[in-house]
Protein backbone atom coordinates (compact mmCIF):
# COMPACT_ATOMS: atom_id res chain seq x y z
CA UNK A 1 0.00 0.00 0.00
CA UNK A 2 2.76 2.42 0.95
CA UNK A 3 4.60 1.45 -2.17
CA UNK A 4 1.48 2.14 -4.25
CA UNK A 5 1.11 5.60 -2.69
CA UNK A 6 4.73 6.36 -3.40
CA UNK A 7 4.19 5.45 -7.02
CA UNK A 8 1.29 7.81 -7.59
CA UNK A 9 2.96 10.57 -5.57
CA UNK A 10 6.34 10.28 -7.22
CA UNK A 11 5.36 12.34 -10.25
CA UNK A 12 7.37 15.53 -9.67
CA UNK A 13 5.43 18.63 -10.73
CA UNK A 14 7.65 21.30 -9.26
CA UNK A 15 11.42 21.14 -9.26
CA UNK A 16 13.43 23.98 -7.78
CA UNK A 17 17.22 24.01 -8.03
CA UNK A 18 19.55 26.61 -6.47
CA UNK A 19 16.91 29.29 -6.99
CA UNK A 20 18.35 32.64 -5.90
CA UNK A 21 17.07 36.20 -5.95
CA UNK A 22 19.02 39.23 -4.87
CA UNK A 23 17.77 42.81 -4.50
CA UNK A 24 20.97 44.84 -4.56
CA UNK A 25 23.16 43.37 -1.83
CA UNK A 26 20.18 41.75 -0.06
CA UNK A 27 19.62 38.08 -0.82
CA UNK A 28 15.89 37.43 -0.51
CA UNK A 29 16.04 33.80 -1.64
CA UNK A 30 19.31 31.94 -1.27
CA UNK A 31 19.98 28.79 -3.32
CA UNK A 32 16.58 27.22 -2.66
CA UNK A 33 16.38 23.58 -3.75
CA UNK A 34 13.32 21.38 -3.32
CA UNK A 35 10.78 19.39 -5.29
CA UNK A 36 7.05 18.91 -4.93
CA UNK A 37 5.07 15.90 -6.16
CA UNK A 38 1.88 16.03 -8.20
CA UNK A 39 -1.20 16.19 -6.00
CA UNK A 40 0.74 17.22 -2.91
CA UNK A 41 -0.38 19.96 -0.51
CA UNK A 42 2.82 21.81 0.23
CA UNK A 43 3.18 24.62 2.76
CA UNK A 44 5.98 27.17 2.76
CA UNK A 45 6.44 28.65 6.24
CA UNK A 46 8.64 31.38 7.61
CA UNK A 47 8.61 34.76 9.33
CA UNK A 48 7.90 37.89 7.36
CA UNK A 49 10.87 38.64 5.13
CA UNK A 50 11.97 34.99 5.00
CA UNK A 51 11.63 34.95 1.19
CA UNK A 52 8.30 33.14 0.79
CA UNK A 53 6.57 35.69 -1.43
CA UNK A 54 9.72 36.23 -3.50
CA UNK A 55 9.85 32.47 -4.07
CA UNK A 56 6.22 32.37 -5.22
CA UNK A 57 6.78 35.36 -7.51
CA UNK A 58 9.67 33.58 -9.19
CA UNK A 59 7.72 30.33 -9.58
CA UNK A 60 4.77 32.19 -11.12
CA UNK A 61 7.14 34.00 -13.57
CA UNK A 62 6.41 37.42 -12.10
CA UNK A 63 10.01 37.94 -11.02
CA UNK A 64 13.06 36.60 -12.87
CA UNK A 65 15.55 34.74 -10.63
CA UNK A 66 19.06 36.14 -10.24
CA UNK A 67 20.38 32.60 -10.69
CA UNK A 68 19.22 29.03 -10.44
CA UNK A 69 16.29 27.37 -12.16
CA UNK A 70 12.90 25.88 -11.54
CA UNK A 71 10.60 23.72 -13.64
CA UNK A 72 6.86 23.89 -13.13
CA UNK A 73 4.85 21.11 -14.79
CA UNK A 74 7.91 20.45 -16.94
CA UNK A 75 8.30 24.06 -18.12
CA UNK A 76 11.30 26.22 -17.23
CA UNK A 77 10.40 29.46 -15.45
CA UNK A 78 13.24 31.25 -17.22
CA UNK A 79 12.87 30.05 -20.82
CA UNK A 80 9.28 28.75 -21.09
CA UNK A 81 7.35 31.33 -19.09
CA UNK A 82 4.18 31.10 -21.20
CA UNK A 83 4.09 27.31 -20.75
CA UNK A 84 4.40 27.80 -16.98
CA UNK A 85 1.63 30.42 -16.99
CA UNK A 86 -0.75 28.06 -18.80
CA UNK A 87 -0.07 25.29 -16.28
CA UNK A 88 -0.50 27.27 -13.06
CA UNK A 89 -3.07 29.22 -11.11
CA UNK A 90 -2.06 32.04 -8.80
CA UNK A 91 -3.91 33.60 -5.88
CA UNK A 92 -1.88 36.60 -4.68
CA UNK A 93 -2.01 37.70 -1.07
CA UNK A 94 -3.80 40.95 -1.90
CA UNK A 95 -7.32 41.03 -3.33
CA UNK A 96 -7.08 40.03 -6.99
CA UNK A 97 -10.66 40.07 -8.24
CA UNK A 98 -12.25 43.23 -9.55
CA UNK A 99 -14.82 44.83 -7.24
CA UNK A 100 -16.51 46.72 -10.07
CA UNK A 101 -17.37 43.54 -11.98
CA UNK A 102 -19.80 40.80 -10.95
CA UNK A 103 -18.60 37.41 -9.73
CA UNK A 104 -19.68 35.89 -13.03
CA UNK A 105 -17.80 38.52 -15.06
CA UNK A 106 -14.64 38.01 -13.05
CA UNK A 107 -14.75 34.35 -14.06
CA UNK A 108 -15.76 35.02 -17.67
CA UNK A 109 -12.75 37.24 -18.36
CA UNK A 110 -10.36 34.55 -17.13
CA UNK A 111 -12.20 31.85 -19.10
CA UNK A 112 -11.50 33.95 -22.18
CA UNK A 113 -7.91 34.85 -21.31
CA UNK A 114 -7.03 31.18 -20.73
CA UNK A 115 -8.61 30.16 -24.08
CA UNK A 116 -11.23 27.83 -22.64
CA UNK A 117 -13.19 26.48 -25.64
CA UNK A 118 -16.17 28.76 -26.20
CA UNK A 119 -18.75 25.97 -25.87
CA UNK A 120 -17.31 24.89 -22.49
CA UNK A 121 -17.06 28.34 -20.91
CA UNK A 122 -20.56 28.63 -19.47
CA UNK A 123 -20.58 25.08 -18.09
CA UNK A 124 -17.13 25.52 -16.54
CA UNK A 125 -18.08 28.84 -14.92
CA UNK A 126 -21.34 27.40 -13.56
CA UNK A 127 -19.43 24.43 -12.15
CA UNK A 128 -16.82 26.66 -10.50
CA UNK A 129 -19.50 28.88 -8.95
CA UNK A 130 -21.35 25.83 -7.68
CA UNK A 131 -18.16 24.27 -6.34
CA UNK A 132 -17.24 27.43 -4.43
CA UNK A 133 -20.81 27.92 -3.23
CA UNK A 134 -21.21 31.25 -5.05
CA UNK A 135 -23.99 30.49 -7.55
CA UNK A 136 -26.59 32.63 -5.78
CA UNK A 137 -24.26 35.65 -5.76
CA UNK A 138 -22.89 35.32 -9.28
CA UNK A 139 -24.69 38.40 -10.62
CA UNK A 140 -23.77 40.67 -7.71
CA UNK A 141 -20.88 43.11 -7.85
CA UNK A 142 -17.83 41.67 -6.10
CA UNK A 143 -17.46 44.94 -4.22
CA UNK A 144 -20.42 43.78 -2.11
CA UNK A 145 -18.94 40.33 -1.32
CA UNK A 146 -17.73 39.29 2.13
CA UNK A 147 -14.07 38.42 2.68
CA UNK A 148 -14.57 34.68 2.54
CA UNK A 149 -16.60 34.98 -0.67
CA UNK A 150 -13.86 37.10 -2.27
CA UNK A 151 -11.23 34.46 -1.50
CA UNK A 152 -13.42 31.64 -2.81
CA UNK A 153 -14.06 33.62 -6.00
CA UNK A 154 -10.32 34.20 -6.38
CA UNK A 155 -9.68 30.49 -6.07
CA UNK A 156 -12.47 29.74 -8.57
CA UNK A 157 -10.95 32.28 -10.95
CA UNK A 158 -7.44 30.81 -10.65
CA UNK A 159 -8.60 27.24 -11.20
CA UNK A 160 -11.12 27.62 -14.07
CA UNK A 161 -8.50 26.31 -16.49
CA UNK A 162 -7.70 23.32 -14.22
CA UNK A 163 -4.10 24.23 -13.45
CA UNK A 164 -1.64 21.50 -12.48
CA UNK A 165 -0.26 23.66 -9.67
CA UNK A 166 -2.13 26.29 -7.69
CA UNK A 167 0.06 28.87 -5.93
CA UNK A 168 -1.54 30.65 -2.99
CA UNK A 169 0.19 33.43 -1.07
CA UNK A 170 -1.27 33.63 2.46
CA UNK A 171 -4.69 32.40 1.27
CA UNK A 172 -6.44 32.86 4.61
CA UNK A 173 -4.89 36.10 5.87
CA UNK A 174 -7.54 38.43 7.25
CA UNK A 175 -10.30 35.81 7.31
CA UNK A 176 -12.25 34.79 10.39
CA UNK A 177 -11.96 31.12 11.50
CA UNK A 178 -15.24 30.09 9.84
CA UNK A 179 -14.30 31.62 6.50
CA UNK A 180 -10.82 30.05 6.80
CA UNK A 181 -12.34 26.62 7.29
CA UNK A 182 -14.64 27.11 4.29
CA UNK A 183 -11.70 28.13 2.08
CA UNK A 184 -9.72 25.07 3.17
CA UNK A 185 -12.65 22.75 2.64
CA UNK A 186 -12.83 23.93 -0.98
CA UNK A 187 -9.08 23.66 -1.49
CA UNK A 188 -9.01 20.11 -0.15
CA UNK A 189 -11.99 19.15 -2.35
CA UNK A 190 -10.21 20.60 -5.33
CA UNK A 191 -7.21 18.40 -4.80
CA UNK A 192 -9.48 15.38 -4.40
CA UNK A 193 -11.51 16.14 -7.55
CA UNK A 194 -8.89 17.44 -9.96
CA UNK A 195 -5.57 16.31 -8.46
CA UNK A 196 -4.43 19.95 -8.24
CA UNK A 197 -1.11 20.41 -6.48
CA UNK A 198 -1.36 23.15 -3.84
CA UNK A 199 1.70 25.23 -3.03
CA UNK A 200 0.98 27.91 -0.45
CA UNK A 201 2.59 30.18 2.10
CA UNK A 202 1.09 30.76 5.51
CA UNK A 203 1.66 32.21 8.94
CA UNK A 204 -0.82 29.88 10.59
CA UNK A 205 0.93 26.81 11.93
CA UNK A 206 -2.32 25.01 12.69
CA UNK A 207 -3.27 25.31 9.01
CA UNK A 208 0.00 23.77 7.96
CA UNK A 209 -0.45 21.03 10.53
CA UNK A 210 -3.95 20.04 9.50
CA UNK A 211 -3.67 20.31 5.72
CA UNK A 212 -0.10 19.89 4.48
CA UNK A 213 1.48 16.68 3.30
CA UNK A 214 4.85 18.33 3.72
CA UNK A 215 6.13 21.72 4.81
CA UNK A 216 9.29 23.70 4.26
CA UNK A 217 10.50 26.32 6.71
CA UNK A 218 12.44 29.24 5.25
CA UNK A 219 14.61 31.56 7.27
CA UNK A 220 16.50 34.53 5.83
CA UNK A 221 16.09 33.20 2.30
CA UNK A 222 17.37 29.73 3.06
CA UNK A 223 15.54 26.43 3.36
CA UNK A 224 15.99 25.35 6.98
CA UNK A 225 13.69 22.35 7.32
CA UNK A 226 11.72 20.10 5.00
CA UNK A 227 9.42 17.18 5.71
CA UNK A 228 6.02 16.20 7.03
CA UNK A 229 4.88 17.93 10.22
CA UNK A 230 5.26 14.65 12.13
CA UNK A 231 8.80 14.11 10.86
CA UNK A 232 9.86 17.61 11.80
CA UNK A 233 8.33 17.37 15.26
CA UNK A 234 9.98 13.99 15.82
CA UNK A 235 13.35 15.38 14.69
CA UNK A 236 13.45 17.61 17.79
CA UNK A 237 12.77 14.66 20.06
CA UNK A 238 9.54 13.46 21.67
CA UNK A 239 6.83 15.83 22.88
CA UNK A 240 7.62 18.71 20.52
CA UNK A 241 4.94 20.67 18.67
CA UNK A 242 5.10 22.32 15.28
CA UNK A 243 5.41 25.62 17.12
CA UNK A 244 8.66 24.38 18.70
CA UNK A 245 9.85 23.31 15.26
CA UNK A 246 9.10 26.74 13.87
CA UNK A 247 10.91 28.56 16.66
CA UNK A 248 13.84 26.16 16.38
CA UNK A 249 14.31 26.75 12.65
CA UNK A 250 12.99 30.25 12.03
CA UNK A 251 14.75 31.58 15.11
CA UNK A 252 11.70 33.29 16.52
CA UNK A 253 7.98 33.13 16.11
CA UNK A 254 7.85 36.92 16.09
CA UNK A 255 7.58 38.82 12.85
CA UNK A 256 10.78 40.53 11.93
CA UNK A 257 11.94 42.40 8.90
CA UNK A 258 9.33 43.45 6.36
CA UNK A 259 8.85 46.99 5.14
CA UNK A 260 6.17 49.61 5.45
CA UNK A 261 4.65 48.90 2.06
CA UNK A 262 4.27 45.16 2.74
CA UNK A 263 2.73 45.77 6.14
CA UNK A 264 0.28 48.38 4.87
CA UNK A 265 -0.65 46.14 1.92
CA UNK A 266 -1.27 43.22 4.26
CA UNK A 267 -3.41 45.27 6.61
CA UNK A 268 -5.34 46.80 3.74
CA UNK A 269 -6.03 43.30 2.44
CA UNK A 270 -7.12 42.15 5.86
CA UNK A 271 -9.42 45.14 6.10
CA UNK A 272 -10.97 44.59 2.68
CA UNK A 273 -11.47 40.89 3.28
CA UNK A 274 -12.62 41.25 6.84
Amino acid at each position, binding site marked *: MIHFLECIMSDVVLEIKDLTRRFGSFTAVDALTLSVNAGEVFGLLGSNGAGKTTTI*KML*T*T*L*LPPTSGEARVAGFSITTQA*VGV*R*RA*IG*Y*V*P*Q*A*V*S*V*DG*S*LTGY*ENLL*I*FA*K*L*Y*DLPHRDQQARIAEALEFMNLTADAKR*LVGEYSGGMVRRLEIA*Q*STLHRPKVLFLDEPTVGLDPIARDAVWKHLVDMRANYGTTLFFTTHYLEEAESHCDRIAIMHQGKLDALGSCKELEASLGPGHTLNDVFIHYAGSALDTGNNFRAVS*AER*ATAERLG
Partner: protein
Amino acid sequence: MHPLTGFIEKTFVITEFELRKLRHDFTELVTRALQPALWLLIFGQVFARNGAMHTGNIPYLDFIAPGILAQSVLFVAIFYGINVIWERDLGIVQKFLASPTPRAALVLGKGFSAGIRTLSQGVIVYGLSLLLGVKLNWSPLALLNVLVIIILAATLFSTFSLVIACIVKTRERFMGVGQVLTMPLFFASNAIYPTDMMPGWLKMVSHLNPLTYVVDALRTCMLADSTSTFGLSFDYLVILVTTTVLVLVGARLYPRLAT
Protein backbone atom coordinates in the same frame (compact mmCIF):
# COMPACT_ATOMS: atom_id res chain seq x y z
CA MET B 1 -3.85 29.68 -32.32
CA HIS B 2 -1.80 32.12 -34.37
CA PRO B 3 0.00 34.57 -32.05
CA LEU B 4 -1.44 37.60 -33.87
CA THR B 5 -5.04 36.29 -33.67
CA GLY B 6 -4.47 35.55 -30.00
CA PHE B 7 -3.08 39.03 -29.43
CA ILE B 8 -6.03 40.76 -31.12
CA GLU B 9 -8.58 38.55 -29.36
CA LYS B 10 -7.03 39.13 -25.91
CA THR B 11 -6.79 42.88 -26.53
CA PHE B 12 -10.54 43.02 -27.11
CA VAL B 13 -11.25 40.81 -24.08
CA ILE B 14 -9.36 43.32 -21.90
CA THR B 15 -11.16 46.26 -23.55
CA GLU B 16 -14.57 44.61 -23.12
CA PHE B 17 -14.14 44.06 -19.39
CA GLU B 18 -12.62 47.50 -18.80
CA LEU B 19 -15.74 48.97 -20.40
CA ARG B 20 -18.07 46.75 -18.37
CA LYS B 21 -16.64 48.39 -15.25
CA LEU B 22 -18.01 51.78 -16.35
CA ARG B 23 -21.68 50.92 -15.91
CA HIS B 24 -21.92 52.60 -12.54
CA ASP B 25 -19.74 55.52 -13.34
CA PHE B 26 -22.03 58.28 -14.60
CA THR B 27 -20.89 61.03 -12.25
CA GLU B 28 -17.50 60.94 -13.93
CA LEU B 29 -19.11 61.66 -17.30
CA VAL B 30 -20.69 64.82 -15.92
CA THR B 31 -17.63 66.14 -14.08
CA ARG B 32 -15.47 65.56 -17.15
CA ALA B 33 -17.80 67.73 -19.22
CA LEU B 34 -17.00 70.76 -17.10
CA GLN B 35 -13.47 71.47 -18.25
CA PRO B 36 -14.07 71.74 -22.02
CA ALA B 37 -17.16 73.85 -21.26
CA LEU B 38 -15.05 76.32 -19.26
CA TRP B 39 -12.37 76.54 -21.92
CA LEU B 40 -14.81 77.10 -24.75
CA LEU B 41 -17.34 79.32 -22.99
CA ILE B 42 -14.94 81.51 -21.00
CA PHE B 43 -11.42 81.38 -22.43
CA GLY B 44 -12.70 80.97 -25.98
CA GLN B 45 -15.31 83.76 -25.75
CA VAL B 46 -12.85 86.26 -24.23
CA PHE B 47 -10.10 85.68 -26.75
CA ALA B 48 -12.51 85.64 -29.66
CA ARG B 49 -13.95 89.01 -28.62
CA ASN B 50 -10.63 90.83 -28.35
CA GLY B 51 -9.38 89.46 -31.63
CA ALA B 52 -6.12 88.69 -29.84
CA MET B 53 -5.37 85.62 -31.89
CA HIS B 54 -4.68 85.68 -35.60
CA THR B 55 -6.24 82.52 -36.89
CA GLY B 56 -6.45 83.45 -40.55
CA ASN B 57 -9.78 83.08 -42.25
CA ILE B 58 -11.46 80.95 -39.58
CA PRO B 59 -13.04 82.50 -36.46
CA TYR B 60 -11.17 81.91 -33.19
CA LEU B 61 -13.94 79.80 -31.63
CA ASP B 62 -13.91 77.52 -34.67
CA PHE B 63 -10.13 77.35 -34.37
CA ILE B 64 -10.05 76.24 -30.74
CA ALA B 65 -13.07 73.88 -30.73
CA PRO B 66 -10.99 70.95 -32.09
CA GLY B 67 -8.09 72.08 -29.88
CA ILE B 68 -10.25 71.89 -26.77
CA LEU B 69 -11.53 68.47 -27.84
CA ALA B 70 -7.92 67.26 -28.18
CA GLN B 71 -7.06 68.87 -24.84
CA SER B 72 -9.90 67.18 -23.00
CA VAL B 73 -8.93 63.83 -24.55
CA LEU B 74 -5.37 64.46 -23.30
CA PHE B 75 -6.50 65.47 -19.79
CA VAL B 76 -8.75 62.44 -19.38
CA ALA B 77 -6.22 59.97 -20.81
CA ILE B 78 -3.08 61.25 -19.09
CA PHE B 79 -4.33 60.21 -15.64
CA TYR B 80 -5.50 56.79 -16.80
CA GLY B 81 -2.35 55.14 -15.42
CA ILE B 82 -3.50 55.74 -11.85
CA ASN B 83 -5.87 52.78 -12.40
CA VAL B 84 -3.04 50.30 -12.90
CA ILE B 85 -1.30 51.62 -9.77
CA TRP B 86 -4.55 51.02 -7.91
CA GLU B 87 -4.79 47.52 -9.43
CA ARG B 88 -1.20 46.90 -8.43
CA ASP B 89 -1.84 47.88 -4.80
CA LEU B 90 -4.54 45.23 -4.88
CA GLY B 91 -3.30 41.99 -6.52
CA ILE B 92 -5.07 42.36 -9.85
CA VAL B 93 -2.07 43.28 -12.03
CA GLN B 94 -0.09 40.35 -10.59
CA LYS B 95 -2.85 37.89 -11.41
CA PHE B 96 -3.15 39.07 -15.01
CA LEU B 97 0.63 38.93 -15.41
CA ALA B 98 0.68 35.34 -14.14
CA SER B 99 -1.82 34.43 -16.89
CA PRO B 100 -0.67 33.58 -20.43
CA THR B 101 -2.15 36.84 -21.82
CA PRO B 102 0.37 38.67 -24.05
CA ARG B 103 1.68 41.76 -22.23
CA ALA B 104 1.05 43.97 -25.24
CA ALA B 105 -2.61 42.87 -25.23
CA LEU B 106 -2.95 43.89 -21.58
CA VAL B 107 -1.54 47.33 -22.41
CA LEU B 108 -3.35 47.96 -25.70
CA GLY B 109 -6.65 46.58 -24.35
CA LYS B 110 -6.58 49.13 -21.55
CA GLY B 111 -5.60 51.86 -24.01
CA PHE B 112 -8.55 51.13 -26.31
CA SER B 113 -10.96 51.15 -23.40
CA ALA B 114 -9.67 54.61 -22.44
CA GLY B 115 -10.21 55.59 -26.07
CA ILE B 116 -13.83 54.49 -26.08
CA ARG B 117 -14.47 56.10 -22.67
CA THR B 118 -13.20 59.41 -24.04
CA LEU B 119 -15.74 59.48 -26.88
CA SER B 120 -18.15 61.24 -24.51
CA GLN B 121 -15.84 64.27 -24.68
CA GLY B 122 -16.48 64.39 -28.42
CA VAL B 123 -20.23 64.54 -27.83
CA ILE B 124 -19.78 67.37 -25.32
CA VAL B 125 -17.49 69.47 -27.53
CA TYR B 126 -19.81 68.98 -30.54
CA GLY B 127 -22.75 70.11 -28.41
CA LEU B 128 -20.92 73.22 -27.19
CA SER B 129 -19.72 73.98 -30.72
CA LEU B 130 -23.30 73.89 -32.00
CA LEU B 131 -24.30 76.25 -29.23
CA LEU B 132 -21.50 78.68 -30.09
CA GLY B 133 -22.18 78.60 -33.83
CA VAL B 134 -18.97 76.83 -34.87
CA LYS B 135 -19.27 75.71 -38.51
CA LEU B 136 -18.90 71.92 -38.28
CA ASN B 137 -18.43 69.36 -41.01
CA TRP B 138 -21.33 66.89 -40.71
CA SER B 139 -20.35 64.51 -43.50
CA PRO B 140 -20.38 60.89 -42.28
CA LEU B 141 -16.78 60.39 -43.39
CA ALA B 142 -15.63 63.42 -41.38
CA LEU B 143 -17.52 62.22 -38.30
CA LEU B 144 -16.05 58.73 -38.64
CA ASN B 145 -12.58 60.26 -38.86
CA VAL B 146 -13.15 62.31 -35.71
CA LEU B 147 -14.34 59.19 -33.89
CA VAL B 148 -11.24 57.23 -34.92
CA ILE B 149 -8.90 60.11 -34.08
CA ILE B 150 -10.39 60.49 -30.59
CA ILE B 151 -9.98 56.75 -29.89
CA LEU B 152 -6.42 56.69 -31.23
CA ALA B 153 -5.40 59.86 -29.39
CA ALA B 154 -6.79 58.60 -26.09
CA THR B 155 -5.07 55.24 -26.65
CA LEU B 156 -1.80 57.10 -27.29
CA PHE B 157 -1.93 59.30 -24.18
CA SER B 158 -3.38 56.65 -21.86
CA THR B 159 -0.60 54.26 -22.90
CA PHE B 160 1.90 57.06 -22.25
CA SER B 161 0.28 57.41 -18.84
CA LEU B 162 0.56 53.67 -18.24
CA VAL B 163 4.27 53.78 -19.13
CA ILE B 164 4.77 56.52 -16.52
CA ALA B 165 2.81 54.46 -13.97
CA CYS B 166 5.08 51.46 -14.62
CA ILE B 167 8.12 53.65 -13.93
CA VAL B 168 7.00 55.62 -10.85
CA LYS B 169 4.76 52.87 -9.34
CA THR B 170 3.20 55.01 -6.57
CA ARG B 171 0.12 57.23 -6.69
CA GLU B 172 1.81 60.29 -5.19
CA ARG B 173 4.68 60.34 -7.67
CA PHE B 174 2.30 59.56 -10.52
CA MET B 175 0.04 62.53 -9.77
CA GLY B 176 3.11 64.77 -9.57
CA VAL B 177 4.51 63.64 -12.91
CA GLY B 178 1.04 63.81 -14.51
CA GLN B 179 0.58 67.43 -13.43
CA VAL B 180 4.06 68.37 -14.67
CA LEU B 181 3.48 66.81 -18.11
CA THR B 182 -0.05 67.91 -19.02
CA MET B 183 0.40 71.66 -19.22
CA PRO B 184 3.61 71.60 -21.30
CA LEU B 185 2.01 69.10 -23.71
CA PHE B 186 -1.01 71.38 -23.99
CA PHE B 187 0.80 74.72 -24.33
CA ALA B 188 3.50 73.41 -26.66
CA SER B 189 0.85 72.49 -29.21
CA ASN B 190 -1.40 74.19 -31.74
CA ALA B 191 -4.50 73.60 -29.56
CA ILE B 192 -5.32 77.21 -28.60
CA TYR B 193 -3.05 79.27 -30.85
CA PRO B 194 -1.45 78.71 -34.26
CA THR B 195 2.17 77.55 -34.11
CA ASP B 196 3.07 80.53 -36.34
CA MET B 197 2.62 82.78 -33.31
CA MET B 198 5.21 80.83 -31.31
CA PRO B 199 8.87 81.72 -30.86
CA GLY B 200 11.12 79.50 -32.98
CA TRP B 201 12.22 77.12 -30.22
CA LEU B 202 8.67 76.50 -29.03
CA LYS B 203 7.49 75.93 -32.57
CA MET B 204 10.17 73.25 -32.90
CA VAL B 205 9.06 71.61 -29.64
CA SER B 206 5.44 71.69 -30.80
CA HIS B 207 6.41 69.77 -33.94
CA LEU B 208 7.74 66.96 -31.73
CA ASN B 209 4.54 66.91 -29.67
CA PRO B 210 2.03 64.23 -30.75
CA LEU B 211 -0.83 66.43 -29.51
CA THR B 212 -0.07 68.89 -32.33
CA TYR B 213 -0.86 66.18 -34.90
CA VAL B 214 -4.01 65.12 -33.03
CA VAL B 215 -5.22 68.74 -33.08
CA ASP B 216 -4.33 69.14 -36.76
CA ALA B 217 -6.21 65.94 -37.67
CA LEU B 218 -9.26 66.94 -35.60
CA ARG B 219 -9.26 70.47 -37.04
CA THR B 220 -9.13 69.06 -40.57
CA CYS B 221 -12.07 66.71 -40.04
CA MET B 222 -14.24 68.64 -37.60
CA LEU B 223 -14.52 72.02 -39.25
CA ALA B 224 -16.53 72.84 -42.36
CA ASP B 225 -13.73 74.81 -44.01
CA SER B 226 -10.27 74.12 -42.70
CA THR B 227 -7.08 72.96 -44.35
CA SER B 228 -4.60 70.62 -42.73
CA THR B 229 -1.15 71.96 -41.84
CA PHE B 230 0.67 68.64 -42.08
CA GLY B 231 -1.75 66.56 -44.18
CA LEU B 232 -4.24 64.14 -42.63
CA SER B 233 -2.27 61.02 -43.64
CA PHE B 234 0.87 62.36 -42.01
CA ASP B 235 -1.11 63.15 -38.83
CA TYR B 236 -2.42 59.57 -38.77
CA LEU B 237 1.07 58.21 -39.41
CA VAL B 238 2.56 60.14 -36.47
CA ILE B 239 -0.28 59.09 -34.15
CA LEU B 240 -0.11 55.41 -35.13
CA VAL B 241 3.68 55.14 -34.96
CA THR B 242 3.81 56.90 -31.56
CA THR B 243 1.06 54.65 -30.19
CA THR B 244 2.78 51.50 -31.45
CA VAL B 245 6.09 52.50 -29.86
CA LEU B 246 4.36 53.34 -26.57
CA VAL B 247 2.46 50.02 -26.54
CA LEU B 248 5.72 48.12 -27.10
CA VAL B 249 7.48 50.09 -24.35
CA GLY B 250 4.46 49.60 -22.07
CA ALA B 251 4.43 45.83 -22.71
CA ARG B 252 8.11 45.75 -21.80
CA LEU B 253 7.64 47.75 -18.58
CA TYR B 254 4.28 46.33 -17.43
CA PRO B 255 5.82 43.31 -15.63
CA ARG B 256 7.67 45.79 -13.36
CA LEU B 257 4.33 46.39 -11.65
CA ALA B 258 4.34 42.83 -10.30
CA THR B 259 7.70 43.12 -8.54
